[in-house]
């Protein structure tokens, strides 16, 4: 098992090797237009230990809507795998995907949106 897959499995609790690349996750995903690789391709890169997956936009575009999770025929929590990819970056102390000081229109936004962004995008 490669080091990257081990890390993803440790964080997500999901056995990424059970993915057989059917593409159900990507077919159901509502955000693929904005992604640079498809969710199933991200899993393929993890299986191969290809760390370039950590530099892709895909995990950050995932909005944790869990359509992939409820549809995966292998029972994988695909959203949790995306979270693991984000977490690996975020756990590099000091890494922030976004700058919370640059939120526009902060008074108008729902509090829960801002809290969620802080959780998902900053360490």
């Amino acid at each position, binding site marked *: 098992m490669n080091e990257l897959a081990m890390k993803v499995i440790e964080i997500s*609790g999901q056995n990424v090797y059970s993915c057989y690349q059917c593409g159900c996750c990507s077919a159901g995903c509502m955000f693929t237009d904005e992604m640079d690789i498809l969710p199933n391709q991200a899993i393929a890169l993890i299986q191969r230990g290809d760390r370039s997956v950590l530099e892709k936009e895909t995990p950050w575009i995932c909005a944790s809507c*869990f359509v992939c999770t409820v549809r995966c025929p292998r029972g994988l929590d695909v*959203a*949790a795998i995306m979270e693991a990819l984000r977490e690996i970056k975020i756990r590099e102390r000091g890494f922030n995907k976004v700058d919370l000081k640059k939120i526009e229109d902060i008074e108008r936004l729902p509090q829960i949106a801002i809290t969620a962004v802080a959780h998902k995008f900053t360490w």
Partner: protein
Amino acid sequence: MIRMKVLYYPGCSLRGNYQEFEKSTIESCRILGVELIEIPRWTCCGVNPSLATDNMMRHLGAIRSLIKAREKGLEIGSKTVVAACSMCYNVLKKVNLTLREDPDKLETVNSFLDEEPDYIPELRVVHLLTLLKELGFENIQRRIVNPLRGLRVAPYYGCVLLRPDRPKGIPIDDPVKPTIFEDLLRSLGAEPVEYPFKTECCGNYHVVFRPDIVEMRSKKIVSSAKHGGADIIVSSCPLCLYNLNRGNEALAEEERVPVIFFTQLLSLAMGGSSYLPKDLENLIMCRIRAETNR
């Protein structure tokens, strides 16, 4: 009349920008004979729960609230925690189920939280819709003084009422073909609108840094409801409501559909206040009167 007390978790949105949601929730429950006992000193639920299984840190806010809920529950004789906000429901439910099913995580949490008493996961977390279903939609129907006849309502489930499906027990209804919202709307006399986007994602927190994604999603959802003939969309999530309205802003005026909280219709139908802006309440009342006079 039903008389019961349940533990109530308001959450930040109901206390902040979306007070009409809380007011209509409390009023509806009062009419139905349900007293909502607020959890003392509740804290933020954490919104989108961390999906990392090796770290309980981001669940602690929810756990602290559950500990306080349990204490209060012993005092009032209730083990049921109700949340009206979809996000709060999802987080509290997930965390409660996780601690119930995983003794190791429960031990980790309890040994870390040394200022609070240990959490004993014996509470039951429910969404307000589930509580209403348990009270019986037929009992709600009996209390309707203002039937919403002729009003075509598109229920918007969004994600977190129905997903994820693990730990088992999070979805409040069938995740693919839910009907709980429709059943409630029928009991109010309204006509639920069927449309294919009712369980699709509005774009969630992306509204903060990628509002373009939210607009793209929300326009599709609102247009789909409009296409189904909706007069109005109801939601139980403050973020969905905000996001769908961002979609509305990006649509031409005749393409828009107003979005409100489902409790506002519930309260209105039972003779309470809707806490809606006057123009929106007028729109609803006109629709109902037109149908009644027909």
